[in-house]
C-alpha cells in the first residue's frame, strides 16, 4: 500500500494554539472552532506529491500541556521534522516555541527539520507577537517561518509541503546519520524559560 518514503513529523506547541486544527484542516479539510483539547497525541497520515515523488507524512499531533511531556521522546524519537506552532495573539505561546527548540536541540534527531508556524493569521488585528521578531528568530535557528490560518485554510498546505520538500532534500543529500540521538526516555528535562513578561491578563480579571 505504501509507496515512497515515510516522513515522521511532530507538531509541538502550547495548548490551544491550533495544532489539531491545522492537522485536521490539512488531512481532512475540516475546521471547528470548538476543537477539544488533545490528550496524549493523535496520529494521522497523508500522502503528498513532492515534484513527482510520493511521500507519506506521518503526523503526530501532540497535547499542548507539559504534564504529558514525559511522552515527548516517543513523538520526536527519530522524527524527521517538527512544526512548532504558536498563536499570533499570544506571546506566551511564542515563548513556548523557543522552549521547544531548546529541548529538541538536546533530545531530538540532529538533522530534524524545523518549521515555525504562527497560527490564527485571520486574527491579525489582534496580533501581539511581532512578525519580524518571529521571522528573525526562525532564521536564527535555521527554521522556516509561516503564517497560517486553519480557519481560513491559509498557509496550511504550504507548511506541510515545505516540510516534505526539505526532508526529501536532506535524504537525497545522503545524510542518513540522523537517527543517532533521541530515545532518551527518562532524562527529559522541561526547560522553563518563560520570560517574566506579563501574559495578556485574560485570566485574572
Amino acid at each position: 500500500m505504501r509507496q515512497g518514503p515515510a516522513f515522521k513529523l511532530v507538531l509541538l506547541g502550547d495548548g490551544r494554539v491550533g495544532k489539531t486544527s491545522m492537522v485536521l484542516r490539512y488531512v481532512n479539510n475540516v475546521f471547528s472552532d470548538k476543537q477539544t483539547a488533545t490528550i496524549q497525541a493523535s496520529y494521522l497520515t497523508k500522502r503528498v506529491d513532492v515534484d513527482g515523488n510520493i511521500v507519506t507524512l506521518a503526523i503526530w499531533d501532540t497535547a499542548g500541556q507539559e504534564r504529558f511531556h514525559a511522552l515527548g521522546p516517543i513523538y520526536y524519537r527519530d522524527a524527521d521534522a517538527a512544526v512548532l506552532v504558536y498563536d499570533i495573539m499570544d506571546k506566551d505561546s511564542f515563548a513556548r516555541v523557543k522552549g521547544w527548540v531548546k529541548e529538541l536541540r538536546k533530545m531530538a534527531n540532529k538533522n530534524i527539520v524545523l518549521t515555525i508556524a504562527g497560527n490564527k493569521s485571520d486574527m491579525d488585528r489582534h496580533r501581539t507577537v511581532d512578525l519580524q521578531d518571529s521571522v528573525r528568530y526562525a532564521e536564527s535557528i535555521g527554521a522556516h517561518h509561516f503564517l497560517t490560518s486553519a480557519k481560513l485554510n491559509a498557509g496550511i498546505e504550504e507548511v506541510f509541503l515545505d516540510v516534505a520538500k526539505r526532508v526529501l532534500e536532506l535524504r537525497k543529500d545522503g545524510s542518513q546519520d540522523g537517527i543517532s540521538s533521541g530515545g532518551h526516555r527518562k532524562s527529559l528535562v522541561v526547560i522553563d524559560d518563560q520570560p517574566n513578561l506579563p501574559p495578556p491578563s485574560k485570566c485574572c480579571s
Partner: protein
Amino acid sequence: MPEEFVGQVLGAVDQVVGLLNIDEVFRLLNMPSNRKQADYGTALVLGVATVAVAAVVGGIVYFYDGRRAPWNRRKKHHPLTKPQWLESFDSNDGRLKDGGEKVLYKARKGGIDISIRAEVWPFLLGLYDLKSNAGERQATDSISSAEFEDLRRQCEVLKAIISSELNKSNLEKDDSGSFEKVSEEDLLESIWEDGDGETSTSEPSTKIEDNLETTKDGDLSENNVSSEPQKNPKVDEILAKGPKALEDFKDWMRIIRLDAVRMNAEWVPYSAVQANVSEEEASRRASEVGIQDDDHLEASRRHHAARLVAVLEAYALYDSDTGYCQGMSDLLSPFVALMESDSQAFWCFVEFMKVAKANFRMDETGIRRQLRLVGQIIKCTDPQLHEHLVKIQADDCYFVYRMVVVLLRRELSFEQTVCLWEVIWADWAALRLEAAAAAAGGSRSLRDALKKLPASKDLLLFAVSAAVLQKRKFIIEKCQGLDEILRECNAMAGKLDIWQLMDDGRHLLRIYNQKVGHEKAD
C-alpha cells in the same frame, strides 16, 4: 413483573455463557486451557443448553419488547431504575436497607437510569456513606457546600494576589526573579495599596483586610461565623510553597479557561435545565469567573464552561499537588452536566480524583502502573498478541495511554462514558463495602455477589484490554510499530460497544484472577 423475571433468567444465562466464554477465549487464542477434555464435554452440553435457553428467552424478550432483535438481547443490561432506587431506602431514617448491596450489584451489572444518576453517584463515589441516614447526608451536604464556597472565596483571594504580583513585576522589570521572596503580607499590602481595582469583586478585598489583621492569630479552627475574620489556609499553603507554586497556579488558571471553552457539548441533551439556561445567566457566570473568549459559544456551553472553571479552580487550590492537567475537565464535565449544584459536582469530582489523580502525576508513576497492568492482562489472556507487542517494542502499552488517562472518555459517547464510569465506581464501592465487611467478619451475600460478578479496582484496565483484544488480528497481522497501533486505537472512537467491553472485561478479569491465583499457588 416480566422485566424482573427476564432479568433473572438473563442473569442465569449470562453466568453459563460467562463460563463458556472463558473456554471460547482460549480456543480462539489457540492456546491450551487448563481444563480437561471432560470439561469440554460439559461445556458443549452447557453450550447447547445455553443456546436453547437463550433462544427461548430471546423469544420472550422479543415478544416483550419488540424493538430489538433477540440476538442482541444478551447485551441488554438493565439499569438500576428510579422505583428500585426509591424502594431500597428505609422509609423511617432514609438508610439504604441492606447497606446498599443490592443497589451496588444492580449498578455494577447494568448501570444506572439517567433520571437518578445525580442521586446515586455520591453513594457510589463514597461522598455519602452507604450506611448513612438522611439526616447525616443533609449534614454532609451543608458542611461541604460551605467548604466549597470558602474554597471559591480563597480562589478569588489568590487571583487577586497573582494579579497584583503581575502589576508589580510590570513596574520592576529589571528584577530578574519577580516572584522571589514574596511574603503573603507584602502581597496583600500591595493589593491593599493598589485598591481592588479591576482585579476582582469587592468581596475578597474586604476579606483580605480581615486576613491582614488575623494572620498571626495562630488559631486555625474553622466554623467561624461569617462575620468573624476569615483565614485562607489553602492560599497560605500555596504561598508557603514558594514562587513556583504561584506560577503554577497562574498557569493552571489559564489552561483551565482554554480547555473549558472548548469542551464538547454532548451532554446537552442529558440536562434540560442547563441546556435551556438564559443568555443573561450564562453571561453572569462567565464574567464571575472571568472567561472572556467565549462569545462564539451558545448560552448552555458558556454556562457549562463557567461552571467548569469555578470547580476546576477550586480543585486546583484544594489539591495543589495535582493542580490542573488537561483531561481533568473531561472527568469533571459529566458531574457539572448532571448536577445542578457546583458544590456537589465538586465533591463528587474530589472523590473520583482520589483515584484518578494518579493519572495526572508529573512523574507518571500512576499511569505507568496502569499501562504495565494492561500489558500483564494481555500477556496473561493473549500470549500471542503479547509476543507480537514485544517484538515490535510496543509492550509498554503506550498506545492505550489516552484510554487510561481519561478513562475512555475520548473513545466513548457521553452516555457510554458515564455508564462505564458508574459501573467502575460501583465496583470501587463494592470493594469498599467488602473491605468494611471483612473487618466485621465478612458478609456471605456480598461474597456471593462478588463471585458471581467479580469486581476490580482496575475494571477500566480490563475493559481497555478487551478493546485492544478486539483488534488483535489486525495488530498481529498489520501493525509493525507503536504508531500503527496508536492510530488503530484512536480509530476505535465511536465504534465501541460499552456492554461488550464490560462483559469481555469481566471475562478477562476472571481469567486473570484464575491465572494469577494459580501462579500464586504454584
